[in-house]
């Protein structure tokens, strides 16, 4: 069981399992719409939770367009090495980066992440992509946009806009990665700051 088990903390649930699922369905259709179909699509999930979101999105895209092989368009893009805050954090070992067999050159790459906040993770992701190949277009899809951008970055597809104060924490929990008291859970919560 691939889980991170946390004790419950007082928090406000803003999206439940069904909300998340509906948001992903909408995003999947938006991706197809923006691309005018499924040609050359690649979904790269940013670890940790961007990846299971990418897998779910790929399945929904395949459900809408049967020509698509969901497993073949998904990949994982680790951005650890490209972060701008490496020397200010404890050492972080990198996650694996795996690209689809057909690569990313000339593809329409959609980066997938759970929360968009300062924008620095996406900046690092753009640097990582440049070293891996040359996509034709790069777009961004996130489950939550909580504002407070520090760089000129914006998402093309957003599950929900959540205005927050910077003292609050936004947590996205997905059954692929999270459980509470041993039970897998899908939800988005805002935790009050200290």
């Amino acid at each position, binding site marked *: 069981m691939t889980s991170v088990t946390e004790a419950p903390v007082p928090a406000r649930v803003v999206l439940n399992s069904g909300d998340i699922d509906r948001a992903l369905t909408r995003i999947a259709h938006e991706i197809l719409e923006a691309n005018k179909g499924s040609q050359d699509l690649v979904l790269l999930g940013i670890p940790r939770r961007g990846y299971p979101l990418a897998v779910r999105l790929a399945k929904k895209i395949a459900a809408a367009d049967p020509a698509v092989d969901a497993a073949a368009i998904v990949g994982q893009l680790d951005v*650890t*090495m490209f972060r701008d805050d490496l020397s200010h*954090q404890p*050492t*972080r070992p*990198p*996650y694996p980066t*795996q690209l689809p*067999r057909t690569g990313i050159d000339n593809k329409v790459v959609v980066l997938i992440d759970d929360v968009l906040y300062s924008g620095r993770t996406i900046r690092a992701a753009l640097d990582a992509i440049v070293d891996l*190949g040359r996509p034709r277009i790069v777009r961004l899809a996130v489950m939550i946009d909580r504002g407070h951008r520090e760089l000129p970055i914006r998402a093309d597809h957003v599950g929900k806009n959540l205005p927050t104060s910077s003292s609050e924490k936004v947590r996205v929990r997905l059954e692929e990665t999270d459980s509470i008291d041993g039970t897998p859970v899908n939800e988005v919560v805002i935790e009050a700051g200290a």
Partner: protein
Amino acid sequence: MKHLLSTEDLSLANAVRILDTAEEMAAVGDREVKKLPALRGRTVVNLFFEDSTRTRISFEAAAKRLSADVINFAAKGSSVSKGESLKDTAQTLAAMGADAVVIRHWASGAPHRLAATDWIDAAVINAGDGTHEHPTQALLDAFTMRRHWAGLHGTPSAGADLKGMRVAIAGDVLHSRVARSNVWLLRTLGAEVTLVAPPTLLPIGVGQWPCSVSYDMDETLAKGVDAVMMLRVQGERMNASFFPTAREYSRRWGFDDNRLRALDSLGLKDTIIMHPGPMNRGLEISSAAADSPRSTVLAQVRNGVSVRMAALYLLLSGDTREPAATPNSAYSNAAHSTKESH
């Protein structure tokens, strides 16, 4: 981890972390842009008191692939001609702003002195000290073995250890830092180690080591081995009576063509032959063995860069607090389920 001085005190968690990070570093070598910006602005000094072009180049390549700046310092002086003292050399490097010092020295314990005193503040990586340890060599050997072992079992290497693997290390154990580092690391990773050598080339006290000892190479092979690691033997040792002649050494403890054939006739079709280099072809290893498909010598060299990248990254990239938890290795395995084979 502040320094990498030995494998004796390297925990299983840290060892696996280095090997897993090295897997990702290896992937970089397959890309068009073989560079990561992670150590941009950091300075790595190669402080070599002993000649070793191949190890130095390996560390240099590793540092450059992480965008670090590299300074090569070939320190003059040896056991016979003293040259500038270790203390003065170290303080000069500190004044030049070294973030990491990769040190190879002919005196056992020199890296430990550098790390223990207040002469420098940099991270210290032991690139081989006397006859004591050579941790990055053991790590690249383990990396090579792990890929092979996991491959045989059809499992991914990431997160894996070497439980159940039978490894024979043969040669001049007494004078070998590679042997020592390998014994500790292989023990930590769960492999079973047998040392094979003439009694004169085994240290007093080897009975306390976490491995078996044998004087008989053929018997060891017959019992079954998954990897045979041959150590370099200096022919001049016969002048100090460690063995009578190179010919007798080679016949009894060398990996010659007979033993290469024995691997086949014993049914050990997957057993690999390893050597840290440089090789004495004809003394401890025959040319046929060195060039056979079982030989991992070139893979070891390639893996050396990846492992050294991992070591440099893990020592230099963060602040000096304890490292964050390893990526949940089972999660990494799930991600691997869509991994295209290279």
